[in-house]
């Protein structure tokens, strides 16, 4: 096209460089699913996604390195040669010797906790991707998909539970949060299911029928859900509000919501009628469920200065919050001020998984697969070093 036209090398480089920079900027940030499942603990034994494609079991010791137990999948174990795992978002569930968990591609696994072998054939006939669950509901497992299917399966055999369709019950919008299971005071079992269309349903576990006369509705997506007390649900929304919904009839105690600075996509830590949680603007709130206001002893929300996706954890009187920075903050529960200086997790990716209480030193899992113990007494987070024969 430009036959015979010579562009000086410097000009060509000058034109190319911004183009490459722009291209780099544009392509950055788009990543494959990494997962944000929180570690699941049973005593000192911890099950967590060390990488997006495998689950690891370790035993954390009070002194010295943690002992490696097993990885899943392990190509050398029977039946695992062709098993692939692609990022886990829902926290694994412990039931006896079995660990249940789902991956993003919609595979449900049951693994023997003792040795990491498959306890059952994985269930793969799931439509859509899974970002929440499973929830253990008695002898059933419940989880939703981003395509809006709610599956309820018998935990043994992974067959559809009686009264539930094999392809799951269909909703008009995606289900991103794990369903919440409740055994009511009436002896009946219920599931609370939130959708990204801003609807919250109470369903009978027996047959999937709706219990409330109409679902609870908000203007923004509901990406997470938690049961605070037997009669109150914590409903965060991407419309920058948190709602407290009565489990009895699906009405909100605060119909206008408790405002936040940005999206709220997390579950809270709950203590003494106060729900503690962060938002995407970096604010950490203490919502008193009795007054429906910020806790009276907090003058203002705590400013963590970076997005908060991870649910916080409480140790005695300290709230441990991990931000996307990633930085660990230690906040005085009573005053809402910093109890210690925040601690930067160096070369650790970012934090999206919930902070998990553990023996006074909550565990913080980063996207680079590093596990830290955050000590509120010292204000220091120490990496859990894993030893053993194989990692």
């Amino acid at each position, binding site marked *: *096209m*430009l*036959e*015979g*036209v*010579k*562009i000086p090398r410097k000009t060509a480089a000058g*034109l190319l460089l*911004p*183009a490459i*920079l*722009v*291209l*780099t*900027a*544009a*392509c*950055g*940030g*788009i*990543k*494959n*699913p*990494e997962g*944000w499942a929180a570690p699941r603990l049973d005593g000192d034994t911890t099950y967590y996604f060390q990488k997006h494609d495998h689950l690891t079991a370790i035993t954390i010791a009070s002194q010295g390195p943690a002992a490696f137990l097993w990885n899943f999948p392990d190509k050398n174990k029977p039946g695992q040669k062709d098993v692939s795992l692609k*990022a886990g*978002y829902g926290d694994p569930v412990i039931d006896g010797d079995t660990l249940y968990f789902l991956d*993003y591609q919609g595979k449900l696994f049951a693994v023997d906790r003792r040795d990491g072998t498959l306890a059952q054939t994985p269930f793969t006939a799931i439509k859509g991707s899974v*970002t929440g669950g499973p929830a253990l509901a008695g002898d059933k497992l419940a989880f939703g998909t981003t395509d809006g299917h709610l599956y309820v399966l018998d935990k043994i055999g992974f067959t559809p539970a009686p009264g539930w369709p094999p392809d799951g019950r269909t909703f008009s919008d*995606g289900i*991103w949060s794990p369903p919440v299971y409740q055994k009511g005071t009436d002896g009946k079992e219920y599931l609370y299911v939130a959708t*990204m269309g*801003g609807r919250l349903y109470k369903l009978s576990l027996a047959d999937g029928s709706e219990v409330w006369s109409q679902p609870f509705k908000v*203007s*923004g*997506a509901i990406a997470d859900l938690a049961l605070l007390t037997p009669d109150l649900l914590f409903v965060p929304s*991407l*419309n*920058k509000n948190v709602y407290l919904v009565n489990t009895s009839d699906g009405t909100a105690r605060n119909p206008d919501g408790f405002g936040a600075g*940005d*999206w709220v*996509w997390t579950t809270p830590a709950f203590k003494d009628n106060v729900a503690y949680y962060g938002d*995407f603007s970096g604010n950490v709130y203490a919502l008193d469920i009795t007054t429906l206001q910020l806790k009276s002893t907090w003058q203002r929300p705590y400013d963590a200065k970076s*997005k908060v*996706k991870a649910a916080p954890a409480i140790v005695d009187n300290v709230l441990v919050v991990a931000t996307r920075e990633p930085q660990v903050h230690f906040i005085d529960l009573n005053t809402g001020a910093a109890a210690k200086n925040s601690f930067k997790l160096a070369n650790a990716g970012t934090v*999206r998984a919930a902070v998990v209480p553990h023996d006074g030193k909550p565990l913080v899992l980063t996207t680079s697969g590093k596990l830290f113990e955050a000590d509120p007494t010292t204000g220091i987070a120490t990496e859990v070093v894993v030893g053993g024969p194989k990692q």
Partner: protein
Amino acid sequence: MIGEIFTLVLINPMINFLIILNNVLFGSFGLAIIAFTIVIRLITFPLTLRQLHQTRAMQSIQPRVQELNKKYSDPKRRQEEMMKIYRESGVNPLGCLGPMLLQFPILIALYYSIRQTLPESPEALENLSTHLYSWGFIQNAVPLKDTFLGMDLRDTNLLMVVLVGLTTWAQTKTTVSVSTDERAKAQQQMMTYMMPLMFAFFALSFPSGVSLYWVVNSLVGIAFNISTYGFPLLKIEPIFKPKTPAAAARRQEAEGNAARAGSPPQGSRGSTAAHTETARELRTANGPGRSKRQNRRRRP
């Protein structure tokens, strides 16, 4: 720094505009992509038109360029003469490149915006919050519905891969070939087939939302090409005729006068056959590529 500016100036407005379109167009993100691509192509149409006209102008002077290539073995001299032709014809050799370079960041931003707005992973949706304006109309729309005509816009779709290849091929076919050199022509011919194959190959790893954008973008490109160059096969005349440069207008006027007076036009240069003949005569009489007056000035 460049990345931040790029995000602030291009990507954020595009993402928010896409979501507004999605809300207006019945919550269909597929329709939003189509409308968005057309709107962006219309906004950048003056740039595209300029590029198309420059390409056509380049094509029109190719016979003279070929002649120069044959005539001068000294590259420096050839370059000088070539620049002279460009100047006289009112053609900017970088004219084709400039608009293309300006469109480049826009296209990248478009691609990125579509990928960001379609949450391919939960992390992508989480990241989307940083790009959204704080209007409830926009905030409450996410996550967007990612199906269109039965296909998941996040996944690769084979039909879209084929369409990407076909539309890219059609766009290349309707583009004017600039070079008259046989070797260059052969290369361009090869590109007519290589480009579609290459893009179809890329589309195998694209979410079909991005492929949809590419298909619509190519269709609009084909429409622009046909409206600028015409399409002889279907006897379609160009709608957007090129602006005649001042020099060319003067030349045409001079040629008209000369024809009436029965003598060659004085001081006229151009790309027409008549002018080429005149120039050839001048070179024959006064040395390669020079008029008698130029020779006098050089060798006093």
